[in-house]
């Protein structure tokens, strides 16, 4: 017994020494995901960002993630657990984590929090999001040109500003190049339910849509598009394996650089609360290479639009734009301010159906 004890204390001593040599403890980084890392969409890309952090810092960081955390009270429990277990910075990666994040942040003033896609901040809570609407503009142009039936199907999740912005941006772009285009929007009230997403895709196709867009997390819609021989756009990540011929391009979420940047700031002690909203230019939003199925002139048009957005000469929300009820939103030449975009809760003129509230 004593032998064992000696061995044990010896090991412990070595360990302590080693820890001393390896100097400071690793920075602990926590991630809270709304879906599974294998969703091949939203959560998958956040996890790619986490892996990028691990790759960049090696054993100077220790990352933890909790997946499938439902938005609501459960989220608060998980975030609190991460904060309590000594994480230095915690990324909460879904809109519905906004209030739970702020609540927990209040109780743990020393822990840094980063909430994705929200709009409420505190001294230790930053927000970050990507200007996906820039990508939506580009795919909207392609959709407007590619549709023969002039019906574009759109599978939406929840009527939060980010999703509404995407619908408006895509519609305006499509309308610009094809005045006859109509958007059919179906709200499935879930981020991830492949069965329901597939049902919605089928319903849209049955109703005449020949181009599909989605703002849900699974590749089900693109798979159905492939099966039915129509075209679609990938969401959040490259979904080409599900629709080799159907996928025209995909908007790619690229969180890695931002995560690395923020973890670095924590290590340096320079972290401060701020709002980050990056688009295509800084690389937070990527556009996958265009499929050959798109005619060359359309590819060029979409590419030019992308380049103009990067150059800052094109804003997807440039007036004149009316709201759905016909009232003026942006006068000719006027561009939308970030505040209105961040809280966008209205359809633009021409989008049919009423926005759920």
């Amino acid at each position: 017994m004593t032998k064992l004890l000696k061995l044990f204390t010896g090991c412990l001593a070595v360990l302590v020494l080693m820890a001393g040599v390896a100097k400071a403890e690793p920075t602990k980084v926590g991630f809270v995901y709304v879906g599974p890392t294998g969703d091949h969409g939203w959560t998958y890309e956040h996890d790619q960002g986490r892996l990028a952090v691990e790759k960049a810092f090696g054993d100077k960081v220790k990352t933890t993630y909790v997946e499938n955390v439902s938005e609501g009270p459960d989220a608060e429990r998980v975030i609190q657990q991460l904060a309590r277990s000594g994480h230095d910075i915690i990324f909460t990666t879904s809109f519905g984590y906004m209030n739970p994040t702020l609540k927990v942040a209040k109780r743990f003033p020393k822990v840094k929090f980063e909430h994705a896609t929200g709009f409420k901040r505190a001294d230790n809570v930053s927000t970050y999001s990507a200007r996906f609407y820039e990508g939506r503009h580009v795919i909207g142009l392609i959709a407007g040109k590619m549709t023969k039936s002039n019906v574009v199907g759109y599978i939406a999740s929840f009527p939060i500003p980010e999703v509404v912005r995407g619908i408006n941006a895509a519609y305006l772009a499509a309308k610009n190049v094809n005045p006859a285009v109509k958007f059919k929007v179906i709200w499935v009230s879930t981020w991830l339910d492949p069965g329901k997403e597939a049902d919605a895709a089928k319903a849209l196709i049955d109703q005449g849509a020949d181009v599909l867009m989605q703002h849900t997390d699974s590749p089900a819609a693109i798979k159905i598009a492939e099966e039915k021989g129509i075209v679609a756009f990938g969401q959040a990540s490259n979904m080409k394996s599900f629709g080799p011929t159907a996928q025209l391009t995909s908007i790619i979420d690229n969180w890695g650089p931002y995560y690395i940047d923020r973890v670095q700031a924590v290590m340096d002690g320079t972290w401060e609360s701020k709002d980050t909203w990056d688009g295509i230019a800084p690389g937070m939003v990527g556009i996958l290479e265009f499929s050959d199925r798109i005619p060359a002139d359309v590819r060029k048009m979409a590419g030019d639009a992308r380049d103009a957005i990067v150059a800052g000469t094109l804003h997807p929300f440039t007036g004149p734009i009316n709201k759905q009820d016909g009232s003026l939103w942006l006068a000719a030449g006027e561009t939308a301010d970030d505040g209105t975009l961040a809280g966008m809760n209205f359809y633009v003129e021409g989008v049919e159906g009423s926005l759920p509230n």
Partner: protein
Amino acid sequence: MDLTILILQGIIVAATPLVFAAIGELVVERAGVLNLGIEGMMILGAIAGFAVTYDTGSFLAGVIAAAFAGAIAALLFGVLTQVLMANQVATGLALTIFGLGIAALWGQAYSGASTDALDAIHIYLLSDIPIIGPLLFSHDPLVYLSIILVVGVSWFLNKTRAGLILRAVGDNHDAAHAIGYSVVGVRMMALIFGGMCAGIGGAYLSLVQTPLWVENMTAGRGWIALAIVVFAAWRPGWALLGAYLFGGVTVIQLHIQGFGVDIDAQLLSMLPYIVTIVVLVVISRDKIRAKLNAPACLGKPFFGSS
């Protein structure tokens, strides 16, 4: 093709996983066991079916593997609750969590993989009849299997001696035991049947409805199946109706949105659940009938030695 027919076809696809899961659970509950692990067995079936179909290229092998995976999970549940006398409710919940976890682990290797959908059977001449053809005679084999299962279970429960024994075990396990029937044996067989059905239901989701593998893809369908069994007052035909009603409301509300009808989308999304609850309430108002149909020993542990 006429839109109405397309909608009806969509309903059949959306309802079929529920038909499988519900008819399996119905038999289990008729035998007096409450297995809340349907969701876990479904997701295991979904990944088993997808993985095996992907690896072998054979749908048949995939469906058999799905049934097998569901059966193994059910067997585990059976050993825990019937032999080791664990609490059925707790074990069922654990089975759901366990199934979701194992399926996620197994599915990691298949993330991003993709198979072709199971083709519909084309029956010569019959499938070409207008309206009736596309509606009744051009589905994938699993749709027909689900209908056959419902008819078969109905016949088994009401017309066969074995079905009578199963119901006896569910209604009064002490009496059944006293006459000399093996309560545990009957319940184990019912559980395995239920597991196989749930597994195939899950496989329908990953092989036909979507067809792909994503973690958590059952998204609560196991619980809906559970509600459908109560809704059906433990009668097979009504379970079929319940599944189609739920699937129907789900698909129709998507179409209503597509048409741009001015109804709140969230309200529409809730509709399938509201309809289920309303029907449940209406049914359970009739206390005598509910009592007549509910297996009297549902969820009660059976201590064989007593």
